[in-house]
């Protein structure tokens, strides 16, 4: 590849400036298609421009075909998002953003998932450690951990009610419509993310580092605290944030277990009733129509995007290893 001469001056530019140029062209094209009221034109433009970029990358017909097919998926993922953003009414969003009822929903929608993420990590990290070191019967435990990933989430909610509701394992605890119930449901569906991310992190720590710690005097606790734990901390944090993000977006299990939740709301200094954000969006859609729910969804999307950016930032090398590979 190195010996080929590039056909277009594209390669002469830095990667950053090429990306910037592509984004700018796409935005202009989208604005033009949107103001014409023909977003379909933009979809066609994306696929054609991807084909053009595939051609410019000099991988021949193969490159063109791959770029074209890939761009169809990008259109399916990105175009609704662009249209969603473009079609929001700023005044409606501002009105919703000032609504105390929405504040409660956003508070609950970030706070309860945080509790679930903490629970997933606190109990998931020890399990992840054992899974990474191996034991008899491990495949069975692995399947159990991954079970919530394949169970439909409304079913997960039903399972929670049977397990921890009336006549369940925690007789003193009422789960239906309570914060503990909501956190239980969120933990059930999000713990696999925390366990699997932490487990991968533990697996990437060389056994010999732990041996080295032990043979030079550290107890199993000390070896974990000073060597294995710090080296796996990035995976644990990632797992926690993933579990948090998964919980923020959870609908099915929460709708079954805790459709409306009564909880203590510090800004008001009293107990209030609200719904988990995805449930609230669905509710608004049923009652207020697309425009109202769109405004609430935009606010929730902003929160989710912030979480997503946080995940990306936490999982880049530079932020967590202090420049040490």
């Amino acid at each position: 590849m190195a010996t080929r001469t590039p056909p277009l001056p594209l390669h002469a530019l830095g990667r950053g400036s090429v990306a910037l140029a592509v984004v700018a062209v796409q935005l202009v094209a989208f604005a033009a298609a949107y103001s014409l009221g023909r977003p379909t034109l933009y979809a066609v433009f994306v696929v054609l421009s991807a084909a053009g970029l595939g051609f410019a990358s000099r991988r021949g017909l193969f490159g063109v075909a791959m770029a074209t097919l890939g761009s169809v998926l990008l259109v399916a993922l990105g175009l609704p998002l662009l249209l969603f953003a473009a079609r929001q009414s700023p005044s409606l969003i501002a009105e919703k953003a000032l609504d105390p009822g929405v504040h409660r929903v956003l508070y609950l929608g970030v706070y309860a998932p945080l509790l679930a993420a903490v629970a997933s990590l606190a109990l998931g990290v020890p399990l992840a450690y054992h899974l990474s070191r191996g034991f008899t019967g491990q495949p069975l435990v692995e399947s159990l951990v991954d079970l919530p990933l394949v169970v439909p989430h409304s079913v997960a909610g039903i399972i929670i009610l049977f397990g921890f509701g009336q006549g369940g394992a925690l007789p003193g605890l009422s789960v239906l419509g309570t914060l503990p119930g909501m956190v239980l449901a969120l933990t059930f569906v999000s713990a696999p993310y925390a366990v699997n991310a932490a487990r991968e992190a533990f697996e990437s720590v060389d056994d010999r580092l732990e041996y080295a710690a032990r043979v030079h005097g550290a107890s199993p606790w000390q070896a974990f605290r000073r060597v294995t734990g710090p080296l796996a901390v990035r995976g644990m944090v990632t797992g926690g944030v993933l579990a948090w993000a998964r919980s923020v977006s959870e609908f099915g299990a929460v709708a079954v277990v805790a459709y409306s939740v009564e909880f203590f709301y510090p800004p008001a200094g009293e107990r209030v009733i609200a719904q988990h954000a995805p449930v609230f969006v669905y509710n608004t859609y049923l009652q207020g129509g697309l425009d109202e729910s769109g405004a609430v969804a935009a606010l929730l999307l902003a929160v989710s995007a912030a979480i997503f950016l946080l995940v990306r930032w936490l999982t880049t090398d530079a932020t967590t290893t202090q420049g040490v590979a």
Partner: protein
Amino acid sequence: MTLEVDVEATFSADGADAFHVAADFSVRDGETVVILGPSGSGKTLLLETVAGFHDHEGTVDNDELVLSDRPPEGRDFAFVFQDYALFPHMTVSENVGFGTRYEWTDDGWVASLADRFRSALGRFGSAISRPRSTVSKLWRRLRGGTGPAPEPPGLRLLADLGVADLAERYPPTLSGGEAQRVALARALAVDPAVLLLDEPLSSLDVPTRQALRDDLQDVLADVTSIYVTHDRTTARALADRIVVMNDGQVVQTGTPEDVFERPASPLVARFTGSNVVPLSALGDRADRLLDGDRDATHLTVRPEAVELGANDPDLTGTVERVTREDATSRVTVAVDGIDSPVTVFSADPPTPGTTVTLRFPRERVATCRD
């Protein structure tokens, strides 16, 4: 103190046959015992078993204690790993100081928890009884500390090994030779009763390896150690005694002289670089060389002892290959009736293809059985 090792362990990996390792040997005070064997002979697993990393049958004990009843941190060993195994998130001086923070007691975890509780209570007590000093200590800590920093433990060891200037670096930024010196310092810093070394030189390039081998020779002179290697040159240079392993079993134990001059089997002889000649290939010349060992099947002799082009030869062969080495040449001679060619050293080597005579000095010849 003599360390007595008598262990057996079975290792199984998914889809592979179980691998059985068994060994019985002792390490006397101040001695370096080299475990020598080909790759896959189980020598690293044996060393890790001695260190307490794997479950096993049998015992490891010194004169007073059964060490194998204790966890790795209670055995008073230190370990140098083939690929260094330095803690990547700690500086060099933190790595070297790692082991010096811990002291093992066999009082069990209840007593140790109680101990920690008591000392935490004591710290809390002194903190509330002397609030001013506590506040100023906290303040100093917040500002990043003032006054002279305490000398990190092990700094002198780093200096002895010539790597003191690396103290504040992180392991991923070190070269192989530097990393292994740091790993050696980390191991020596705990002043272990026995130092365990697992192929510490084999990840290094040749000049670095020779330099570190010289340093190791000095270090191991005063330290009781077990040293695992597949490299016979290193074994000969460092060993007081050698344990030769093959396929998980000990096949010979002895001084370097024993192992190199009088290998116990053709297998050991080949692995230590001796020539192996079946007696059948020598015909009636065998009688001249044998000390009446009628059970022997093979004769072994070091390449440097074989005389090339002598009168009254024991064997005749054709020069197959001449390889130039530092001060001499290694000549391999193909002989009818012997599977592997005979190796000889010569300062004035014949050209390949010529016919040469070989004579074995009687006093350098040993015999062994299959």
